[in-house]
C-alpha cells in the first residue's frame, strides 16, 4: 500500500500539575502519493503536534502513522521536514547544508554533487553556495532549507509554517516555488500555515482543524494549486470561487477563535 495513512491518531499531553491537554483526538487522514495538503486552524489546535507525530518526533498516545505500508516509529530520511526557522547549520556553508542528507547516507561528492548543484539552481542560490548561513536573508535561508530537504529525496515533505517569517513579496515567490517543486517532483506535501490565502493557494486539499480537543473540522478539495503551477498567483486569486471560499474559511476560523475566547473568559 503506498501513500501516507494517518490512522486514528490521538495525543494527550500530561501536564506537570497533574492535568492534561488533549492536543489531538481521533485524527484520520489518507494521503495519496503526490497529494498537496495545507492545514489551517486556530492557534493551539494541534497542527504542529500532528506534524511532529508524522515526522516521528513524537509518538501518539493512540493510533499509528503508516507510510508506504510500514508503520512510522521515528524520524527518518523518507519524511523530510522544513521548519519555520533556525534549523539550518550555521557552521556549514549553503552547499554543505544542502548536501547534508546525502553525506549522512555516506555518499561522496561525485554521487551527490550534480544533484545538489541542480537544486541550488532550482532555488536560485547557485551564486551563494559558498556563503555562510548568517550571510543570507530570511527568504534565502528558507530556500536553503527547502533545497536541503529535497536533496534527500524524501517521499513526504512536512512544512510547519515555512514561510511564516517572510515578507509578503518573498512569500509569494516562495509559494510559486513550492508549487513548482510539487509538480516537478510529485512529492506528498503537508503544509501548515496561518494564512488562509496561502492555504488556498498551496492546498490541493485544505484541512481545517478545530481546537480542544484538536480534530479535523472540515476538508476542502480546491483547484487553485493546480491552476497556480507556473502561473501568476495573483491571477489565480481572481478566480470566481476564490473569494467566497476564502470568506467561508475565514469566518469558520473566526467563529472558532471567538469560541475559544469566550471559553477562556468564562473560565477566568
Amino acid at each position, binding site marked *: 500500500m503506498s501513500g501516507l495513512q494517518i490512522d486514528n491518531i490521538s495525543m494527550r499531553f500530561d501536564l506537570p500539575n497533574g492535568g492534561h491537554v488533549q492536543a489531538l483526538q481521533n485524527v484520520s487522514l489518507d494521503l495519496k502519493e503526490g497529494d498537496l495538503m495545507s492545514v489551517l486552524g486556530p492557534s493551539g489546535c494541534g497542527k504542529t503536534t500532528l506534524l511532529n507525530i508524522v*515526522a516521528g518526533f513524537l509518538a501518539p498516545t493512540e493510533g499509528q502513522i503508516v507510510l508506504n505500508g510500514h508503520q512510522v516509529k*521515528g524520524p*527518518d*530520511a523518507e519524511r*523530510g521536514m522544513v521548519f519555520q526557522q533556525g534549523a539550518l*547549520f*550555521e*557552521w556549514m556553508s549553503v552547499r554543505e547544508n544542502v548536501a*547534508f542528507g546525502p553525506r549522512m547516507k555516506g555518499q561522496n561528492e561525485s554521487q551527490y554533487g550534480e544533484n545538489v548543484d541542480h537544486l541550488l539552481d532550482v532555488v536560485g542560490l547557485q551564486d551563494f553556495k559558498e556563503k555562510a548561513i548568517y550571510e543570507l536573508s530570511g527568504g534565502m535561508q528558507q530556500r536553503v532549507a527547502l533545497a536541503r530537504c529535497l536533496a534527500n529525496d*524524501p517521499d513526504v515533505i512536512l512544512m510547519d509554517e515555512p514561510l511564516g517569517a517572510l515578507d509578503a513579496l518573498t512569500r509569494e515567490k516562495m509559494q510559486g516555488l513550492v508549487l513548482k517543486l510539487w509538480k516537478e517532483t510529485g512529492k506528498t506535501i503537508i503544509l501548515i500555515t496561518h494564512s488562509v490565502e496561502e492555504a488556498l493557494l498551496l492546498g490541493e486539499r485544505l484541512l481545517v482543524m478545530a481546537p480542544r480537543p484538536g480534530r479535523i473540522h472540515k476538508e476542502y478539495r480546491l483547484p487553485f494549486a493546480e491552476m497556480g503551477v507556473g502561473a501568476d498567483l495573483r491571477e489565480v486569486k481572481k478566480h470566481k470561487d476564490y473569494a467566497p471560499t476564502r470568506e467561508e474559511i475565514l469566518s469558520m476560523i473566526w467563529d472558532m477563535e471567538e469560541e475559544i475566547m469566550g471559553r477562556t473568559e468564562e473560565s477566568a
Partner: protein
Amino acid sequence: MTGILILLTYVAIFVVTWVVVTAVVGRALQGFNALKTVTFGDESAVTPNRSASIISVLTLFLIWGAFTGSALLPSFLHAPGPFKGDTQFTYTAEDGDGNRDDAIVFARVAEVGTDVEDPVAEGADEGFAKNDVVVAGAWRSELIRVDRNDEIGRDAGHKVVAINGEPIEPGGRVKIADGEVGMTPKGTLNFIPAKGLQMEPIWLPSPEAVWQRFLNVSTEGYQNFTLLEHLGYSLFRVVLGFLFGALVGIPLGYAMGLSGWFRGWFDPIVEFMRPVPPLALIPLVIIWAGIGESGKIILLFLAALWIMTIAARAGVSGVNITKVHAAYSLGASKWQLMRHVIMPNSLPEIFTGARVAMGVCWGTVVAAELVAAEVGAGMMIMVASRFQLTDIVIMGIILIGIIGFGIDILMRMAEKKLVPWKGRS
C-alpha cells in the same frame, strides 16, 4: 598625602585632555554614526576614542615618572624630590641647674647606599654643648645623641629644650629648613630630612629602573633561572593544566548534556566545585602533591576542569531542538548527530569557557607560585619582594599582565577563525 595628589593630578589630566582633545579634534564621528542625531544613550554609537587610550597610557607613565623622578622626564615635570645636600640646625641644651647653651648640628643627606663623607663642623663652639655632625639617607631619618660629645651627658641632667629657638619636648617635632627634627620619648633627637613628594625607589622605582632591571634579569636571570624560564614555566603549567582540564572536562560536559545518569552523578560534584575558588585548593594540593610541577598542574587541571565541563554542558543543552530534529529527519544517526550538529553547535560555548579557563588558570598559577615554587613568574616576584626588589616585582607584574592579555587576544583570534558564526544565529 602623595596619594591624594597623584589622584588629583590624574583627574586633572583626564579632564584637561578631554576638553582639549575634543575641542581640537571635534566630534569626529565617522560613517553611519556621524548621521545619528541620538548618540547619548545609544551604546552602539560609543566607540573607544583611540587618542584617549594613548593619552591614558602616556598619563600613567607620566605620573609614574613624575613621582619617581624619572630621568626620562624633563626635571620641571618632576614632583618635588627628597632633600639631598647639607643643612644645619641649632639645638639648645639645658643642664641640671637650668643653664642653657646652643650648639649646631651639621647634617648631610645623600642617596641611600652611596658613600659620603661626614660634614665638617665649622665655627666657634663654646659652652658645654658641642656641635654635632650627622649623615642621613634621603627619605630616612637618623637619631642623633647630641649629648654624647657635650660636656654634660644625659645622665647628668642634659636635656635638649629647643630647636632653632623653638621649644621641643619628648614626642614633639619642630620644622626646620629641609626637614624636621623630632624627639623620642627618651629625649634623643631624630633628624627627618624633607621627603618631598616623590616615591622612594624601594616603594616605587622609576620606569627606567624597571626597564634596566628587565634587561638585567633577561640576560642574567634571577634566582637561578632566566626570565624566559620563569615565564616559560608558568606558561607551560597553564597550558598543560588547561589541556588536561579541557581533555577531561569537554567529554564530561558532553556526557552530562546527553545522559541523565551522567548529569545526575556529576551534578553535585560540579555544582559543589564550581564555587570553590581554585586558590582555596592550593594548600590541599601542596599537602598532597608537594610544591613541584605535578602539584601545580593538578591545581590548574582542577581550575580548568569545572569551567570546561560547564561550558561543554551548556553547549550541548543550548542546541536548538529544531536542529536536532532536522538532522534526524535528514537521516543522521546518533553518532552523526553528535559529530555534525552537537559538537559544532557547542563550539562557541566551549570557546567562551576556554577563554575564561585560560584567564583563571593564569591567575591561579601566579598565585600558586607566590605560595611555593622553585621557578615561575609568581615565585620571581615573591622572592624579589622579600628582598625589597620592587623593580623586579613591578617588572613581573607588568609581564604577567602582558602575557595574560596576549593569551586572551590569541584565544579571541582563534575564536574568530574557528567559530565565525558565534552570536550570529
